[in-house]
């Protein structure tokens, strides 16, 4: 019998975590990670944060280089998987090589959505997704402003903050009337918007890009749907993402609008093919309906769960999603997914620089968000997991030690983890 062989497509947080989890559980087969990006596997969050602040060095590796040898994880970097050959049970690479495969993990992630107007691929228009994009943006920002950011999502606002900290003039254009409101509700969203206003970011809402005015291959002005024109030295586009599901055709696995639909163990419609991280379409208990969870921490944990399952120890991925976003000197942290029907409880004394908000669902904490409140978030995350019953007045009281609300319920946590 030939040796078992797992191929992981994507040297991403999800892909590498899956590989590490498999070795930790003593998976004996071959593990090959393939990625078109030539750089040793790196963390993506710093691409929109520290990598661009002008002080930090290079890419942050996910693992020390020697660990791949230690764990016998083969890396095929700078190579592309072109097809899955179901008949031969092989993965075809762009260079012509073929890899045997009996367990396939698709950790291909998402790609940044591009604008469809002319000049959207100009020299000074950046869709930030990988290291090469980050380096290009960094060199553009070195020349100064003004910077126009299209899309006031987390990536767009992080970049706005980084640019303001470098003294660059920043305008953010957002199609929705209230940026982030669909993610964190209007109360918290306005605090974040106030933070950016306080740092001199110009925010234009309810507007989209009508067209770019360019000279040669360089955009010089952004013309908005409202008719307004904004001068631009650099344009960053952060208007959402598209799943990378190109391999679905040859792998003959189902695809939906979110990505590869998977069950709670990360299996696609073909049981030996898994999807992990951003590209997985999940029916997750914290999502109101099937969807993607596009966060780095989720990718890492989902990858770990899928790797465990591949190694023969099935793990369901059900934890509350966690995301953070560095904004100026603070860190915005979000646990779970706030819903419009939740009761929002903002802790008293909230300012744009420091706040803590809870979303109560049937009297229990369903989601939490905090700015510069990381000590509380660690406890609040466990309140979400433990499904603790809480009183909104107690939560709103800034003097409440959250750990006191958690401790009597610890046994519930254990029960839930076991369930």
């Amino acid at each position: 019998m030939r040796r078992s062989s797992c191929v992981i497509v994507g040297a991403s947080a999800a892909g590498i975590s899956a590989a590490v989890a498999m070795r930790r559980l003593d998976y004996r087969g071959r593990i090959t990670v393939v990625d078109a990006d030539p750089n040793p596997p790196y963390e993506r969050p710093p691409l929109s944060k520290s990598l661009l602040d002008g002080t930090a060095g290079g890419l942050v590796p996910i693992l020390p280089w020697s660990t791949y040898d230690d764990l016998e994880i083969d890396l095929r970097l700078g190579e592309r998987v072109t097809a899955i050959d179901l008949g031969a049970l092989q993965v075809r690479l762009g260079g012509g090589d073929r890899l045997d495969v009996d367990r396939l993990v698709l950790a291909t992630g998402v790609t940044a959505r591009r604008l469809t107007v002319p000049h959207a691929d100009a020299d000074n228009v950046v869709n930030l997704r990988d290291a090469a994009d980050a380096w290009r943006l960094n060199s553009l920002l070195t020349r100064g402003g003004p910077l126009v950011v299209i899309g006031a999502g987390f990536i767009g606002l992080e970049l706005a903050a980084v640019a303001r900290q470098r003294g660059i003039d920043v305008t953010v254009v957002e199609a929705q009337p209230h940026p982030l409101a669909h993610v964190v509700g209007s109360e918290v969203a306005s605090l974040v918007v106030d933070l950016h206003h306080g740092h001199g970011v110009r925010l234009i809402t309810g507007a989209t890009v009508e067209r770019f005015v360019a000279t040669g291959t360089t955009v010089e002005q952004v013309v908005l749907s409202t008719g307004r024109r904004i001068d631009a030295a650099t344009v960053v586009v952060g208007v959402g993402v598209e799943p990378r599901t190109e391999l679905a055709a040859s792998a003959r696995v189902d695809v939906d609008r979110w990505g590869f639909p998977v069950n709670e163990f990360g299996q696609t419609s073909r049981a030996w093919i898994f999807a992990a991280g951003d590209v997985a379409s999940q029916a997750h208990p914290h999502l109101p309906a099937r969807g993607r969870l596009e966060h780095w921490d989720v990718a890492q944990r989902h990858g770990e769960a899928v790797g465990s399952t591949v190694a023969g120890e099935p793990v369901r991925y059900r934890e509350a999603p966690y995301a953070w976003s560095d904004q100026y000197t603070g860190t915005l942290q979000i646990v779970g997914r706030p819903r419009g029907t939740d009761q929002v409880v903002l802790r008293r004394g909230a300012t744009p620089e420091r706040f803590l908000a809870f979303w109560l669902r049937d009297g229990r904490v369903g989601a939490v968000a905090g700015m510069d409140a990381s000590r509380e978030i660690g406890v609040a995350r466990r309140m979400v997991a433990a499904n603790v019953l809480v009183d909104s007045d107690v939560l709103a009281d800034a003097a409440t030690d959250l750990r006191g609300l958690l401790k009597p319920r610890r046994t519930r946590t254990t029960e839930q983890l076991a369930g």
Partner: protein
Amino acid sequence: MPWIRACSVDELDDGDALQIPTNPPVAVFRADGEFFALDDTCSHGQSSLADGYVEGDQVECAWHMAKFDLRTGAALTLPATKPVCTYRVKVDGDDVSVEVPDRV
């Protein structure tokens, strides 16, 4: 390395931590009645481990959820891959002292 008084025994409840502003900063933890001292700055990001969540003899970084062993400083989970330094702690009567790397 000099010893300095970090706190009194009663100042920290179980699960509590405090940061000593040495260079580099040190975090002192109390877990199940025992005291531990580690580098305060996470070996992955730049978060303060004193803000982390203590459970058993582990602390979880408050930003990216990496876990460290309070006894050995070992990195137990991704995203951390490097350990943090541990420092000697002694409890003398009501005083908790730590052998710190530099001076205050």
